[in-house]
């Protein structure tokens, strides 16, 4: 994989159109491209003009597209955990705990986790098979949470590991004084034996790997899509500021649908907001008045900003 592209922005600014256009253009340039939508409200296949189907679809020899089923990843996580619990827990404990999953699957953060898992899996699957991976993302709020999740997880893991070490230290003190029966025969007393500690390390490794990909400016390119309207521009600034907190920067600003109204740039407020984007490379895509969906302009649109992205 040479590059990974993320399209970010407010809902309705044209992320899917631009992501799809870039993918189509790159595939026409004989590069092998995989495009995925992780937006729960998909319309990638609608834009590409193919009928919806689960799993990856080969649109042409070097162009593959997929709409990711996020729920599937939540179900997968819960199924895996239930199976492990059945193996590890005593029967009676299991009966009481299994019902917890009905609550847990609706817990805050599960959707972001499922999307992050989907991202991890698709990057892992396709990185050796294609030249470019293009990701059409959900609108701002959810996507920011996905970018923040590995960092938040790492902060928690750091604290939890310290806590766990203290537990293991106390257990080993008791074993030293009273022997193994002091804590119980099957109870782990050191980091190497403790499965909780191992799982924490495993999750730490995963989070670091995905964070490394997100913050690698050579591989991972973040494209911010805005329209010339105040709300999408303000949201664009919010995205830039939020991502800066985790040292992720925007590589390209695409001002989409230029000319949708004639008077908008005379508004001082909007001009001031546009000034705040000055340090970022900018490309403008016109508003195609004659098309409801500018499907036959895909090559033109992709070509308009690919140069800025790849140079």
């Amino acid at each position: 994989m040479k590059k990974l592209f993320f399209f970010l922005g407010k809902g309705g600014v044209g992320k899917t159109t631009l992501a799809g256009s870039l993918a189509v253009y790159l595939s026409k340039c004989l590069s092998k491209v995989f495009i995925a939508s992780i937006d729960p409200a998909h319309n990638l296949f609608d834009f590409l003009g193919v009928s919806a189907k689960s799993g990856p679809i080969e649109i042409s020899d070097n162009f593959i597209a997929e709409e990711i089923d996020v729920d599937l990843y939540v179900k997968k996580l819960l199924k895996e955990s239930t199976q492990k619990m059945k193996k590890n827990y005593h029967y009676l404990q299991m009966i009481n705990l299994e019902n917890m999953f009905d609550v847990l699957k609706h817990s805050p953060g599960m959707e972001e986790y499922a999307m992050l898992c989907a991202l991890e899996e698709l990057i892992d699957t396709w990185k050796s098979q294609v030249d470019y991976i293009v990701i059409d993302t959900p609108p701002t709020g959810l996507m920011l949470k996905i970018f923040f999740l590995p960092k938040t997880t790492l902060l928690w893991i750091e604290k939890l590991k310290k806590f766990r070490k203290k537990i293991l230290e106390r257990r080993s003190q008791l074993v030293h004084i009273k022997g193994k029966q002091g804590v119980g025969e099957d109870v782990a007393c050191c980091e190497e034996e403790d499965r909780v500690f191992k799982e924490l390390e495993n999750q730490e490794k995963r989070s670091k790997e995905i964070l490394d990909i997100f913050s690698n400016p050579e591989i991972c390119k973040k494209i911010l899509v805005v329209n010339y309207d105040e709300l999408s521009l303000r949201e664009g600034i919010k995205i830039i500021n939020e991502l800066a907190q985790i040292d992720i920067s925007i590589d390209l600003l695409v001002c989409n649908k230029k000319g949708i109204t004639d008077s908008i740039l005379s508004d001082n407020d909007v001009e001031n907001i546009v000034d705040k984007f000055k340090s970022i490379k900018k490309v403008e895509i016109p508003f195609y008045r004659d098309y409801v969906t500018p499907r036959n302009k895909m090559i033109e649109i992709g070509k308009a900003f690919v140069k800025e992205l790849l140079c």
Partner: protein
Amino acid sequence: MLKKIKESFLLFSKGFRDISIRAIEAELKELENVFALILMGALTGMPAPPSYLGIKLLPFMERELRIMICRSEALGDIFADWFDILDFG
């Protein structure tokens, strides 16, 4: 006489040792209880790590969960619990 003094010292020493061990045991239980509580924080309204982390660790936490449930049952009489550990009264 000396033998009796020695025996008394040994008795005291054993008593203190037992109290120390019980304190470590109680501390361990408390740590394990809090560890489970933190991971289940989303269910109890406390600041919690991402839910999926809790779910990933859940299969290996039977002991901690059992301790957490026992501790929450005894929450009404927490002082008695600690007085017992410290051997007051």
